[in-house]
């Protein structure tokens, strides 16, 4: 399969999210940036992870429940971690299904995605890191948007 590019997007810094009307992702460039390889896989994975399940008109099963916990009152870190693990697993299943149907290059095909760390951010929220590995063996650790617990 010939190499193709996807549009790149990046996380909006937590302190800028309010000014950006709550947006957590942005193209962030003066012109679109194409990506391929592991970053493209990471983008696909994050997009699925951050899409609220049921919000896609064409595919009600696309996405995870992760967006629902942003702003929720999870006080126990353990609960938060468990929820994240479930959502990551759900996301992995969907991305693998896509991969099986479309068979992208090895560096864009998901091997695994695991919760790397959940770091409390002050008195409110966590910074969540996920390590995504492609079939080619490349590891990429991404930060998911801030899970503000309010």
């Amino acid at each position, binding site marked *: 399969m010939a190499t*193709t590019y*996807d549009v790149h997007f990046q996380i909006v810094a937590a302190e800028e999210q309010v000014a950006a009307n709550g947006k957590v992702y942005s193209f962030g460039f003066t012109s679109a940036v*194409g990506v391929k390889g592991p970053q493209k896989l990471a983008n696909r994975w994050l*997009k699925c992870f951050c899409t609220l399940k049921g919000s896609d008109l064409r595919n009600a099963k*696309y996405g995870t429940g992760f967006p629902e916990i942003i702003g929720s009152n999870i006080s126990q870190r353990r609960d938060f971690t468990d929820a994240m693990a479930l959502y990551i697993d759900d996301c992995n299943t969907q991305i693998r299904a*896509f991969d099986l149907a479309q068979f992208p290059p090895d560096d864009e095909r998901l091997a695994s995605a695991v919760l790397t760390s959940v770091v409390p951010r002050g008195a409110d929220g966590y910074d969540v890191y996920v390590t995504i590995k492609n079939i080619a063996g490349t590891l990429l650790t991404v930060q998911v948007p801030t899970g503000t617990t309010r």
Partner: protein
Amino acid sequence: MATTITLDEKALSDADAFLTAYLSEKVPDADFSQGSVIRDFVITAIAYIFAYLEQERKTTRDQQSLLALSKQSDSEAIADAVNALLSNWFITRKTGQVARLTATLHFSAAADVPLSPSTRFFRTTDLIFVPDAPAAFVIPLSKLTPTYNANNVVTEYTTTVNLVAKDVGAAYNLPPGKFLQTDQFSPFFTYAENQSTIGGGKNIESTGDLLVRAPTAITVRNLINARSIDTVLRETFAGISRVLSLGFGDPEMLRDFSSEAVTRLRMHVGGYTDIYAQLPITEVVESGLLGGTYTRPDNTIAVFKDAAANFLGAPAVIPGDILRIVTGLPDAPREYIIDTVSTQTLTVVPRAAFSEPTDEALPYPGKYVSYTIGNTAPGYSDKRNVLALPVLNPVSGGQTSRVIQTPYCITLKGRPHYRVKRVEMFQTATPATIEVITSRVNGTPAAAQYRVMGLVPGNGQSAYAVDQIEVNTGHTGSTWNMRVTYDTLVGYEDVQALVVDRFERVLASNPLVKGYTPVYIQMSVAYRLRIGATTALDEVAMSQTVAAFINTFDLTKTLDMTGILQNVRAAFPDLGVIVSPTILAYNLYAPDGQVFAYETQDIVTVYPSYPSNNAHLTNGHPSTTSPAELALRVPISNADLDPTTSPTNETIFAAANKTLKDQLTELGVSDRTLIYLTTADDITFTLVS
């Protein structure tokens, strides 16, 4: 136009797939695979919009094509689209037709009955009829008929009135029954009823029917050929459901025959068009003085009369003699061939009739002509030579006339005369004493019998039909009146008026609209219930089903007993064994007034053909011994036409069939000029155990 665009999953998938393929080709470097970001933004985001626009494009494209429209289920949007497309060819949807009936009104006392077109008669709570009249009118007391009980006491009075449905639609075609309610119009009114099935109601034309009609509608809009006549009449008159145009060279065409008196040579000369139109049927009542004077409906001025003459006296005037009008007519002198002779009246061959009726000239009693009669040229005066001398008393001279007067007869109005339902006789002084005559015969009527005579078979079932109804000679005196109830065609006059309209007609043609020659069918079916059936069958509904099947039968196919019974079995699965033999009887009412009675156990045809069909005539005879039998020019016996008789002489049989066929052809009757009709009352089902 209310068009609803519906997007289904397939439409969205198709849009998705098209956009993916298209963009993948245009931007080969972009990743439009499932789950990619770019796919969400440039494909998924607009797939709905693209699918909507694509669906609208398809809908718009489909609405430009009658073929595509014909494949879609009828809806308001489709109907609007078809209307819009066909309007390009000036084809419009038929607006349906109102049902008509003759209702019988019952009264407790005799009094004038005032009615207006707004007086409502509720046949059901929703189906309303009003009097079929343009303005308010009064049914006079004299038109009310008393009904007597066994003690000769008047129990009620009845009269009839023509009603028309308030709206179009086949729902108004109802079986006989009583009206639920009426608006108040007479204190003595008790109830109204329709004694026969209401007919003529038609729904607004469906899109399917309109599309079927459209191909023949796209043609020249002149009354010049079969295709254009069909189009113009169907477009103009919603009630017309079938049209057949016959003209030069068609065997059914009788009006263009030119006969040569001496050699009896006959040849078609052309110039005539017979237009058969199938219209809804309604019942009308007509009355007149028995033996009275009637203007010939065909307006032919063929009567010559001289009150002082005795044409039967020596030397007797005979048919074939020449009547020569010497003075008194614009085209005099001119000769005419005498056709019939009576004491003071002659008729001349109608094809070369008089140019004007002198008895209608003013002042009364009109102009008189000088004439001679004879058979020796050039004067033709060897039998009569009469000079017109109006100053004498009595006046000397003859008069031409379009009025006919026949003993024991009334002449019906010029229009199609289908089945005669009732003939009633009464004297002017005693209108309440009514003699009902029910038996129709072909020969000279005896007591309680009547016959119909079509004097001009070529004009049968048309505005020019000269049809008379004759009763027996027992009705002497000049005060007998006859009241006839018969079926005719709804709106016939309007169709005829159009084809003879000066601006519509073909200038070189003599067009005439005719009703199809009616064949009325009767059938009695003895049946058993299907084994296991638990409820009785609705025999009235079964009769109505059969009647509807026959009346709407596609006449390009052959009607047969099997088809009729299959149809009723399909509608009533609990119908069990039909107890054989079921015989279907049918009467052809020929244009000369004769009734050709048939029976069959298989196909319905007026041309029996043994052994291919079992149909046979039942009132033929070698010599007319009964008034009911046909007076065929070449004798036909029932035995000749009945394959059930034994032994069967096939040679005689074939010859008899040919004679019958020739006889019908002589009357302008063929399979294509026939219409099969029946009513639910004529179809009976009887349960046998």
